[in-house]
């Protein structure tokens, strides 16, 4: 017995070593290579960006312009998210009402929905006659594509899309945070005479500050890196992410990688300090501010009044936001597919119908089938490989002293803008470095592994920490199970739910990813990329059909997640 275990003593160390090596190689290396690429090829960067013989530093001006635009967009999106996300999260965490789980699903939907399809749905809704405009009896869309939101000066549709795609990060994070706060604090505050609003401001919100920050960070990173939907709705304006895609496709690799590194570095500089601060503080945070008593009394009185009249607004407003940003686009795109099914409803031409475009000379149906198989192969392989890396990695994070460090490193791929990610993978594995893999399905898989690993690891860790694994394993050990036995018979079955959830989450994410895929796909097209191409080719009915198809696919997967997490 003793002899046997001694012979295999190196095995755990080997597993740890392989897992960490895979993590560094597949997940971290591309990003670091992207940054080092800029330094390695500094001459090239300088020539293209700062001292082009023909256009001078025009590219640098472009970079600055799109960066400022991106930041304006992302910051205003996060600000909007926070105001409504906090309300919505509060309602979801503290109230019980019929249809609550449906509402939760709706909020989650943008997390799993392929962004290009969703972007197209939003575009239809606001700017075409097939959307709200048509419903209201107008002969055009409700507003032109280039309508600008005043003050923040960003296109309206772009703003809306970014809100719907980032709101879930704020809501889900805060909802979990609110739920983890014991209701006794609120009850105590209420019985001590504070109104609901005062209680919320003084008790719940300060306790939830870490949740507010981490939700905001996730939403900010998502907005900064969003590519799929942005490509479709951005019109003439360009965000940093789509500028990278454009430059990469024009083979201006130096400019693209310089821009990509800038984006990565800025994202880190903003996000990592916040993450580290709250990680170290163990989620506790104290805000001390002192209002003059007269003002404070006034506020409390106002809050008392608001507590009586506010409930309706509080319940109604989030619903309204969800309806306009999520439900309406989906309904509209469905409606449009039906309208366009056999022919263009306005010109009556069969060439403008879904059926013609799918089965006619352009034969989009075939492309959809091909893209579907590419998408599914990519999602399956990438998720499978990522799961194999993620399981040992989650154990390392929980068990080893350096686990916390690895967990922080895992944030790197989570907050890297997706087009920078695609570019980095292309540079690392492609001709400019290893020269192993050319653009195509294998490169897509390598790209998807990068963002799948952290998604699955987080999901496993949540399951791990929620079920007191250490106690069960200790118990099994004293009952005669070896360390390997205990993992096999106790911990893996106990975290099975987490692994499956992570698998499905990462699968849907992979299925819907557009930005990074666009850069590395070569001739192997995935479904979301196909939607972008269709829109660019103005094959609107085909794009409508494919978007609907994508949305339904992801809704089906969402149903799977629900069943898995309910257990």
């Amino acid at each position, binding site marked *: *017995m*003793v002899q046997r*275990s001694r012979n295999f003593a190196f095995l755990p160390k080997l597993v740890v070593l392989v897992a960490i090596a895979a993590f560094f190689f597949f997940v971290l290396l591309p990003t670091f290579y992207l940054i080092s690429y800029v330094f390695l090829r500094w001459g090239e960067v300088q020539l293209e960006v700062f001292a082009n013989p023909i256009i001078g530093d025009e590219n640098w001006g472009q970079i600055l312009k799109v960066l400022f635009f991106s930041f304006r967009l992302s910051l205003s999106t996060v600000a909007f998210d926070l105001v409504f996300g906090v309300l919505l999260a509060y309602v979801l965490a503290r109230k019980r009402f019929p249809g609550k789980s449906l509402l939760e699903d709706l909020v989650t939907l943008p997390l799993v929905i392929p962004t290009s399809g969703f972007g197209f749905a939003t575009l239809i809704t606001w700017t075409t006659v097939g959307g709200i405009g048509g419903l209201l009896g107008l002969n055009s869309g409700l507003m032109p594509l280039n309508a600008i939101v005043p003050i923040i000066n960003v296109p309206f549709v772009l703003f809306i899309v970014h809100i719907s795609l980032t709101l879930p990060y704020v809501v889900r994070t805060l909802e979990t945070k609110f739920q983890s706060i014991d209701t006794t604090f609120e009850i105590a505050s209420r019985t001590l005479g504070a109104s609901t609003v005062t209680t919320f401001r003084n008790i719940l919100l300060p306790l939830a500050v870490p949740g507010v920050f981490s939700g905001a960070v996730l939403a900010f990173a998502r907005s900064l890196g969003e590519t799929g939907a942005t490509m479709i709705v951005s019109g003439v304006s360009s965000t940093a992410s789509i500028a990278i895609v454009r430059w990469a496709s024009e083979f201006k690799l130096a400019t693209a990688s310089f821009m990509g590194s800038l984006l990565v570095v800025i994202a880190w500089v903003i996000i990592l300090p916040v993450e580290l601060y709250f990680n170290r503080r163990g989620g506790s945070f104290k805000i001390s501010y002192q209002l003059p008593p007269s003002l404070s009394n006034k506020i409390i009185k106002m809050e008392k009044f608001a507590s009586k009249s506010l409930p309706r607004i509080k319940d109604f407003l989030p619903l309204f936001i969800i309806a306009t940003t999520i439900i309406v686009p989906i309904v509209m795109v469905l409606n449009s597919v039906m309208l366009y099914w056999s022919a263009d409803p306005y010109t009556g031409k069969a060439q403008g119908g879904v059926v013609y475009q799918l089965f006619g000379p352009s034969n989009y149906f075939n492309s959809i089938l091909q893209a579907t198989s590419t998408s599914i192969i990519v999602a399956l392989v990438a998720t499978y490989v990522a799961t194999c890396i993620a399981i040992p990695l989650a154990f390392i994070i929980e068990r080893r002293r350096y686990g916390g460090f690895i967990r922080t490193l895992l944030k790197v791929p989570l907050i890297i803008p997706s087009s920078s990610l695609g570019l980095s993978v292309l540079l690392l594995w492609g001709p400019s470095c290893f020269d192993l893999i050319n653009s195509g399905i294998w490169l897509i898989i390598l790209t998807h592994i990068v963002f799948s690993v952290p998604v699955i690891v987080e999901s496993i860790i949540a399951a791990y920490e929620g*079920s*007191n694994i250490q*106690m*069960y394993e*200790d*118990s*099994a*050990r*004293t*009952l*005669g*199970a*070896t*360390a390997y*036995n205990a993992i096999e*018979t*106790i911990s893996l*079955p*106990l975290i099975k739910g987490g692994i499956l959830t992570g698998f499905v989450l990462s699968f849907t994410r992979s299925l819907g990813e557009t930005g990074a895929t666009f850069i590395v796909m070569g001739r192997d097209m995935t479904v979301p990329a196909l939607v972008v191409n269709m829109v660019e080719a103005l094959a609107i009915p085909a794009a409508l059909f494919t978007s609907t198809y994508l949305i339904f696919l992801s809704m089906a997967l969402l149903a799977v997640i629900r069943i898995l997490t309910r257990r």
Partner: protein
Amino acid sequence: MIKLVNVTKKFGAITALDHINLSIDDGEYLCILGQTGAGKTTLLRTIAGLLKPDEGEIYVDGELVNDLPPEQRNAVYMFQQFALFPHMDVWQNVSFSPVIKDWDEDRIKNLTFEILEMVKLAERRDAFPNELSGGMQQRVALARGIASGARILLLDEPLGALDARLRVELRTQLRKLVKDQRLTAVHVTHDQEEALMIADRVVVLRRGKIEQIGTPNEVYLRPQSIFVLSFVGGANFLEGNVVRVSDSGSLIEMQSGLHILVSDRSRSIGERVVVAVRLEEVSVGIEVVNSTNSFSGVVETAMFIGGSMEYGVRLENDVLLFSRILLSDAVRAYKPGERVVVSFNPENCYVFAYPVIGLLKEIEAI
């Protein structure tokens, strides 16, 4: 036999176990008694092999087991929360160890069934842990431990997760089971009543050190330190100086001139001491019956505690002395404000040197 020699375990700056020397006989029921943070659980986990001692040796049956992983120590660790595997039913939980150890299939079946019969849970063999009551879960955990064939049970607050009544009921059952199966049990608890009732020997642990080891009787009647006295049973503590030592005992002067006579003559004149008297040794009456150690005072509090009354009497020197009188022994009841005389026997007084860190610090938790 389990033997610990100079076992020390540190967590950073905290010394959880400080040179523990202890030997546990086969078939013994040993209780480790201590407050939260005393190092009880650390001690138990170290014996189980879930923690490695920084210093010292652990022997089981004469064999050094320091480097032996938990699965080879034949000592089952039972958690307060029972740690029944939530994804397995009762049968799978109980047969976990035999299956893992790859015993013969028929043997596993018979053994599991037999043990489930013994804990009267054979009918619930298909139930999952979350479908069982706390008491049932505890029985399954015990059954699982016994089925593993382990000779040593390490019980970490095994009754702590149960409600008060069940806890008392199960004490005797637990002991009986251990004795019937001829197991060795190490039982960790912070409940002194539980320890005194269930154990063959009690180890009082404090800040990682053993304060006293002894039978429940010894620990209660001959406490070796102020801490043990206050933690096990509790007492009145009075400060004073030794003023005279004679054949009949020592005379101790309290702060405001009151004198206490104690039988203990081991202290020297002038020494600062603490005199302790158990609450149940202090009697309350209206008149002076015996002139030694009789003090008049006023009843300040009167509390009804189960089958007895507890009085707090303020003496003339402002000391508050507590007395506990069984209702069946009570001559009459006293009301707050009433003038009474309290007295106690010199033989029932314990005398300790005044602690270096101060009396209150010595008694207070952790």
